[in-house]
């Protein structure tokens, strides 16, 4: 895993020292809130409904045991004993006090972590496939590329005052688990005629005006990445709308100018600036690649796994849903569900964080990942260790067998925490998970992704949920709009609005009607909700959701 060099460590220490002084000056009154706010946002500190919130970057979602333990310590010492893992592969603390934040940042720096560029109009935390370096279907580990981009963009003078925030995501597989088509720039490591390079996608994004990214370059040689991405940011930096914050993201620039025009401009700019890149970045990249060398795999027998799989139905159920094929057939990728039925999606207590840290250290080559689906991943576990890993997860209430199922819901903080929210999302997720668990339908329903946002900003990715839920404020009452058929993978699609929204009480029955309609019309249990939706379209679901209007129309 990537280690800070002296420069990184000194940079973070200097930033923390500056911020400590800024907090002191805010508290003694020499800085006004107007002066302080941009400074705290640059350091990931938001003011929410009930308290401050500190957003800590987990670059490309990768953590080691020591870092996870430190997050547990922070949660216990300065927060209320838990943390919230988010769709941006970050962790957020919901209750820090202003005067404690400099100490928290120092505690993070001890384990090579920080909260820089987790907010503001900068290039944000670069996200990556959470199965990176382990997935069986991968061309190459995307994290060295993500790390190169992180180093290049952090504190880059041109990129501190962009028209708006800018989000990059990288994957090394054709199967897109990093939602790269919903990012400002999505990067896929690809192989063409034996040469490894990148496919570059631009102009995706969710929020108020959701867009699926378009291919800007089908194949970019590896050494051209930084000049090409820089050229893209340059073009947007010049064309991007600073007059209107709702039109400032690159997705709007691409939409207004057309992908061909943008591609022409990017190529022209790229030709101009490429000579200035001496190739030193490729030297960095090969150094970075060494720190992501795969672990030394064990060659033990896997019979303990087979025995447990045969004899223990709970283990089998968990193995069937929560394991993914590893590139080494003796290993598996473990997804730890932070979605116990009725719990807050993405939350982990300090004790749970320590259990996960222990498991990573003892059985997982000291690696953990945060997934954008708000779960934690142990990317490299030898199959013979899985029964033990499962037993310990279960004891810590982390053994829920529901990855990819209806209760594995993404939910943003919504109006329980977020100052921008128009409705709550967490209780909606809790109700849906508990309801379908009580009906014992979850495993029969099969793969189904529900994603919930508490306002139009779409932090909960609702546009790309198979069932998307958007919470709104309709004349002072919470109201929930449903979209169907969204997809965040390589076949990215925006969900289609089903019709008028539902009250908080009416929403759960509405979701059940959708699910029962699917169960009735699927061709057989192997046809997933999304496949069935693509086959039959909106009509049958609409009929189930709005029986009155069907009756009126008849």
């Amino acid at each position, binding site marked *: 895993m990537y280690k800070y060099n002296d420069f990184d460590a000194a940079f973070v220490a200097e930033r923390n020292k500056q911020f400590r002084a800024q907090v002191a000056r805010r508290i003694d009154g020499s800085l006004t809130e107007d002066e302080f706010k941009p400074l705290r946002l640059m350091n990931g500190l938001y003011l929410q409904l009930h308290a401050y919130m500190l957003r800590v970057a987990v670059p490309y979602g990768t953590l080691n045991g020591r870092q996870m333990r430190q997050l547990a310590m922070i949660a216990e010492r300065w927060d209320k004993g838990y943390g919230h893992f988010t769709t941006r592969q970050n962790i957020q603390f919901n209750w820090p006090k*202003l005067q404690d934040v400099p100490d928290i940042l120092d505690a993070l720096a001890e384990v090579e972590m920080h909260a820089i560029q987790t907010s503001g109009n900068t290039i944000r935390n670069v996200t990556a496939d959470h199965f990176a370096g382990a997935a069986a279907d991968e061309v190459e580990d995307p994290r060295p590329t993500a790390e190169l981009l992180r180093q290049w963009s952090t504190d880059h003078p041109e990129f501190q005052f962009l028209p708006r925030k800018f989000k990059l995501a990288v994957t090394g597989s054709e199967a897109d688990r990093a939602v790269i088509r919903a990012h400002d720039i999505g990067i896929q490591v690809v192989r063409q005629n034996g040469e490894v390079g990148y496919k570059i996608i631009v102009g995706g994004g969710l929020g108020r005006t959701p867009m699926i990214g378009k291919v800007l370059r089908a194949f970019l040689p590896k050494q051209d990445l930084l000049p090409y991405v820089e050229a893209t940011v340059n073009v947007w930096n010049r064309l991007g709308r600073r007059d209107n914050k709702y039109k400032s993201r690159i997705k709007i620039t691409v939409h207004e100018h057309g992908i061909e025009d943008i591609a022409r401009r990017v190529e022209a700019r790229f030709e101009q600036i490429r000579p200035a890149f001496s190739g030193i970045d490729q030297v960095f990249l090969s150094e970075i690649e060494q720190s992501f060398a795969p672990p030394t795999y064990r060659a033990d027998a896997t019979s303990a796994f087979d025995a447990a799989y045969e004899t223990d139905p709970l283990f089998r159920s968990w193995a069937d849903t929560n394991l993914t094929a590893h590139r080494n057939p003796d290993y598996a990728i473990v997804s730890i569900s932070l979605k116990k039925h009725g719990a807050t999606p993405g939350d982990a207590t300090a004790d749970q964080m320590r259990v996960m840290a222990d498991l990573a250290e003892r059985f997982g080559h000291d690696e953990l990942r945060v997934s954008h689906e708000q779960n934690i991943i142990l990317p490299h576990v030898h199959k013979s260790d899985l029964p033990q890993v499962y037993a310990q997860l279960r004891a810590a209430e982390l053994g829920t067998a529901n990855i990819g199922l209806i209760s594995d819901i993404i939910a943003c903080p919504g109006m329980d925490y977020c100052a921008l929210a128009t409705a709550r999302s967490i209780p909606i997720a809790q109700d849906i998970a508990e309801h379908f668990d009580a009906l014992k339908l979850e495993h029969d329903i099969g793969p189904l992704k529900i994603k919930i946002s508490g306002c139009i900003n779409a932090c909960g990715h609702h546009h790309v949920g198979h069932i998307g839920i958007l919470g709104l404020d309709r004349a002072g009452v919470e109201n929930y709009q449903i979209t169907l058929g969204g997809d965040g993978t390589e076949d990215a699609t925006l969900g289609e609005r089903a019709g008028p929204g539902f009250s908080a009480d009416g929403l759960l029955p509405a979701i059940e009607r959708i699910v029962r309609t699917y169960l009735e019309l699927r061709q057989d249990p192997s046809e997933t909700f999304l496949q069935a939706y693509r086959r039959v379209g909106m009509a049958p679901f609409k009929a189930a959701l709005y029986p009155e209007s069907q009756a009126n129309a008849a």
Partner: protein
Amino acid sequence: MSRPFTKVITANALLEGDVIYWTEEATWTRHLSKAEVFEDEAIADEQLMTASAQTDIAVGVYLADVHLENGLPQPTHFRETFRTKGPSNYAHGKQVELN
């Protein structure tokens, strides 16, 4: 029909971020029940200026709608109701801290 003007001044505390309300004594309280209720817009605006000037205590000062029940202010909008309690997923915030 225009609704009668009934508002309180509210903000977040600088240090804890907790929800606070402006009182008749020109101080801040954590309890909505102790907030000064304004029924005159001109007075409310003037007090809002005074309250907003206390930047070493309060952040994001604004007027929020309330209505009176038994003489005590109650939030009108659900967002303000959550601000008097805390989140619904855990017993954290005002719902436990004030009692």
